[in-house]
């Protein structure tokens, strides 16, 4: 009977009976996409905010047409007083408005606001645009009255389409979904990995297991596969749940469409398997060195920074080098990015990074097996 398989079966059964491990593997896959969906709801509603801008208008009796125009643009007079923490946005219309308009003199309308206030940026811009639009309208009438084609005053028609912010926000959304998927293999098997290494030591059963007639390789791979099974299960669960949950997020409102097709998800799943093995190997390496469960948990939370840095870091730093396609972790991330953007996949890169991931995991496994032969590690000398 194969010892690795024997240990795998025993550890898997053991872990399945551990409610904490099962819950840890499931909760990430369940609550993660949920949380993300909620965050996106907020983001989308903010981006497509159609509500009125409320400002203070001084001297509105002097220019009722302007006020009416503003109202049509969704800019209304504020009824409640401004809160202390917010700088008021105030538009002042001078008393000589009607007279100066009549004489075709420039009227000075003052907009007072705090341009550095991040939250009011869009509101201030909307007021600016509305006033400018009204001014353009007046220009229009005046020129027509004088028999001039108003287009004369517009030699260039700059067509501004505000896609930039939406585009980057969409990339951010998809980027975080990908990071979430990649993290699922690190998260779901974590509890099992700690339990069968540091936990085994803490429960004083490690010494007896190591005294049995089998190689430390069998022990490491049996245990590694048990934790990997949980990691893979967690990954599969989040891959299944993400499309379902994202069905309910109105991504189309910000001009985004993500197509989670079945072949794409299957490909992602296959690519995640070597990564799950690597994640488990790293976790076992760390937690076999820890004296107890708690210590292992502390070290492993540091370990979670690696996948986050590798995926978020690359995303934010806009790092673009072909090497990323071939390395473990970044390779999977790049392939996922291409998949979700509907671009062609760098197949060579994806395969090389998969093999590299597998090789790295195997090397770490052999290292742990050697570690378990060392009395320093086993007895913490």
């Amino acid at each position: 009977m194969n010892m690795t398989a024997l240990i795998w079966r025993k550890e898997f059964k053991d872990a399945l009976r551990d409610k904490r491990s099962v819950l840890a593997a499931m909760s990430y896959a369940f609550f993660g996409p949920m949380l993300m969906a909620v965050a996106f709801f907020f983001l989308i509603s903010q981006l497509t905010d159609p509500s009125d801008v409320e400002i203070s208008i001084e001297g509105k009796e002097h220019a009722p047409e302007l006020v009416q125009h503003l109202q049509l643009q969704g800019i209304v007079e504020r009824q409640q007083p401004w809160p202390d923490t917010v700088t008021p946005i105030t538009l002042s219309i001078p008393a000589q408005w009607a007279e100066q308009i009549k004489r075709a003199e420039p009227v000075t309308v003052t907009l007072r606001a705090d341009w550095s206030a991040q939250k009011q940026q869009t509101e201030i811009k909307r007021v600016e645009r509305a006033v400018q639009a009204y001014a353009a309208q007046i220009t229009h009438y005046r020129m027509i009255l004088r028999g001039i084609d108003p287009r004369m005053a517009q030699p260039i028609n700059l067509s501004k389409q505000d896609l930039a912010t939406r585009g980057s926000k969409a990339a951010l959304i998809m980027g975080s979904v990908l990071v979430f998927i990649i993290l699922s293999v690190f998260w779901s098997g974590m509890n099992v990995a700690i339990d069968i290494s540091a936990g085994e030591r803490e429960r004083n059963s490690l010494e007896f297991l190591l005294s049995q007639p089998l190689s430390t390789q069998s022990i490491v791979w049996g245990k590694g596969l048990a934790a990997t099974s949980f990691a893979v299960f967690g990954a599969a669960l989040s891959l299944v749940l993400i499309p379902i949950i994202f069905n309910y997020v109105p991504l189309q409102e910000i001009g985004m469409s993500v197509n989670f097709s079945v072949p794409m998800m299957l490909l992602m799943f296959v690519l995640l398997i070597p990564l799950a093995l690597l994640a488990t190997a790293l976790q076992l390496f760390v937690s076999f060195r820890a004296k107890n469960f708690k210590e292992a948990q502390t070290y492993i939370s540091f370990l979670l920074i690696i996948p986050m840095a590798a995926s978020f870091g690359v995303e934010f730093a806009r790092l673009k080098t072909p090497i990323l396609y071939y390395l473990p972790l970044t390779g999977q991330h790049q392939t996922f990015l291409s998949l979700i953007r509907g671009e062609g996949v760098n197949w060579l890169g994806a395969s090389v990074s998969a093999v590299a991931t597998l090789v790295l995991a195997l090397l770490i496994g052999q290292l742990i097996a050697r570690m378990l032969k060392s009395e320093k590690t086993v007895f913490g000398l």
Partner: protein
Amino acid sequence: MINVQRLSKSFKEVQALDNLSFSAPDGQITGLLGPNGAGKTTCLRIIYGLLKSEQGEALINGIDANQDPINARRQIGIFPDKFGLYERLTVREQIRYFAQLHGLSGMELEQRTELVINQLDMSSLANRKSAGFSQGQRMKVALAQALVHNPKHLILDEPSRGLDVMSTRILRDILREQRAQGTCILFSSHVMQEVAALCDRVVVMAKGRVAAEGTPQELCELTGESALEEAFVKIIGSDEGIAA
């Protein structure tokens, strides 16, 4: 037959074993008697290959566990210093697991598992998970794990610690049964009564060395004392760390 020859081992500045030699013959119970910190556990861990000696060798049936740990360990059943149980597995599952690790399968696996469960009189525990077991019950499970593959050698590290009278009796009966089958039994203890009641041969250890060796009777004669306890104190030169 377990043969320990000139073992030396140190941890940083502490010399745990210092040129230790003794042997445990088949069909006899050899007691490793010594105060706390004498190096008993270190010696046993070297025998089953978890620690490496700096000098000398420990042979189980002629095999050095430092050279060939897998074959050496096939020959032995171990009751370790720390015996944690898998509390989410039932007793039967645990015993079967270790039987399988020793290569048992099929009919032999089932028979040996049932046999050892009956031998230790724990049929009523067999399908329970070991969480919440008493010290005596835990000892039984650990002993079953050591015995299930019917080893030719038994190495027990202070098996009677924390046991009540009834559990101690069961343990002794089992060890005597094993001796009758020709098993080589090596066990460490710092409990005098137990050694006197059970052992055919006693190896008295102090500060990593063999202080004296022989039957309990011989040790008493050697020191001119009538009780083993007095003989022991005389041999190691102090009464530190001994339980009567």
